[in-house]
């Protein structure tokens, strides 16, 4: 037992080294810096320790609050849509039919496309002169063409559409896995009891895919709170800051304005939000696991 114990620790060592050097250390640095005032372009200020001042300023900062609100809207709209569409796709893929493999591969395409490519693509689709969306809605009537990425009411919607399109396959895959784990005899038993398709869905399918649903929810929420590439390529936070998500605001503060301390505080804030959501989900998962066990 002791030797296998040692072997196990040895096996863990390489990953531990990578994670510590390239992830843990930078994270601690970020935490540390959030307690300082550090502005690159004003070096005479130096690295002044200011305690919680950055976080207090963040709370008072209307732009930060607006970007928090924007981020929450983004997460709150895209995640349910992804799960809904994902579930629909998963239900279709769960059936056996000709060409199912092909459809499965097609479904993965949006997810396989690099984010920068997909962002450029959607930027082109939303173009106000030769974009596909305008063509679909208004045909050849150029005078009625919209500029979604220039319109403060539409820009966020455009970004959310691009995000849902790209990440739905991921949700679909996880939900499909969950569906395929449901034994067929449960459905047969329900049929014998005279259940309709909808009843089967509500009482057999939904409860049993709850773990998969929560898993998809967890991963997607974490990623969604950190959305950046899409905003960076498509709108750079505009117009009028309507797509200024928290992560992008943090990027601007850290890299463009050189306000390292404040930017780090924003990153920590995003992290704490992710952490909170994750803990809540894990709590849910535990209870659902117990429920599943009693079935």
């Amino acid at each position, binding site marked *: 037992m002791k030797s296998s114990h040692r072997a196990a620790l040895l096996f863990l060592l390489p990953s531990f080294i990578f994670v510590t050097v390239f992830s843990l250390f930078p994270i601690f640095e970020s935490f540390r810096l959030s307690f300082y005032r550090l502005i690159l372009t004003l070096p005479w200020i130096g690295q002044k320790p200011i305690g919680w001042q950055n976080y207090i300023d963040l709370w008072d900062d209307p732009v930060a609050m607006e970007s928090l609100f924007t981020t929450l809207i983004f997460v709150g709209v895209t995640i349910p849509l992804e799960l809904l569409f994902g579930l629909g796709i998963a239900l*279709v893929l769960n059936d056996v039919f000709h060409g199912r493999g092909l459809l499965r*591969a097609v479904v993965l395409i949006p997810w396989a*496309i*690099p984010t920068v490519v997909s962002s450029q693509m959607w930027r082109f689709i939303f173009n106000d002169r*030769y974009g596909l969306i305008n063509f679909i809605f208004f045909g050849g009537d150029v005078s009625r063409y919209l500029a979604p990425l220039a319109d403060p009411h539409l820009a966020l919607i455009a970004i959310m559409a691009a995000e849902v399109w790209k990440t739905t396959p991921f949700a679909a*895959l996880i939900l499909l896995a969950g569906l395929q784990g449901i034994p067929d005899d449960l459905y047969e038993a329900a049929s014998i009891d005279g259940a309709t398709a909808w009843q089967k869905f509500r009482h057999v399918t939904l409860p049993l895919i709850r773990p998969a649903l929560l898993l998809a929810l967890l991963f997607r929420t974490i990623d969604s709170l950190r959305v950046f590439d899409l905003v960076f390529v498509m709108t750079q936070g505009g117009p009028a800051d309507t797509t200024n998500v928290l992560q992008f605001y943090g990027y601007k503060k850290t890299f463009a304005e050189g306000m390292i301390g404040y930017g780090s505080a924003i990153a920590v804030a995003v992290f704490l939000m992710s952490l909170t959501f*994750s803990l809540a989900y894990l709590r849910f998962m535990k209870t659902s696991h117990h429920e599943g066990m009693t079935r």
Partner: protein
Amino acid sequence: MKRPLALALFSFGIALYCLVPFLWFVLTSLKSSAELTATPPKLIPSFHLGFYQSALEKYGLLHYIGNSVIVAGAATLITIAIGSLAAYAMARLQLGWTKFYLMILLAISMFPQIAIAGPVWSILDRLNWLNTYQGLVATYIALSLPIAIWILTTFFREVPSEIEEAALIDGCSRLQALYKVVLPLAAPGIFTAALLVFIHAWNEFFFALIIMTDPDVQTLPVGIALFPGEYTMPWGEISAASTVATVPLILLTLVFQRGIVRGLCAGAVKG
């Protein structure tokens, strides 16, 4: 959901939803310069390969793809190797702190990558690994390990330990047992993890942008981001490059999709 007509309709709808935006981009890459900026936009292009030629010759597309293959490939292989070791250890070692370690990994993967970009750059600088393949690969390994270890641990736990015990009794070392017994049985999980890591490394933009400033080693996302010239937006070349950039990924998913689905099937539900 067994009615064939409904099924066919839904399938068609899904295929449309997933394909049309990308197809539009592909069609754009086949247009001529004049058709590109036509208002209203033309749907059917004239199947002009000019943009592809331009992308390959003027913009060095193949070169970027080569770099991406090297970086993503290396990152995937090493991550899976190291991750498998770690996952195996944690699947077999039921100590209290394995759960803790997994939680830490999850927490780490939640941290916004923008904020750690600066310190990571400093570390690579000190190691003299900026503008090198190993610098970017090391970064990607660190970023992908959490999710790889999570998935692999889940799958390894599914492998019944009796088969392994038998192998050990027969005289295999732990490492041999891992290699000969566990890995083949957990193949779907490995496929899943490998594809996830590869796609992540292939798509990654931000770290690649700040670590690789030498055009010789730049990867594809950075390359495409640099296509725009000083004042022009070459949609034609961008769409051509994007098409070429995405095709290998699509092929990979086509090849591995059965494995992925089976893999997620076995693992995800158990959580």
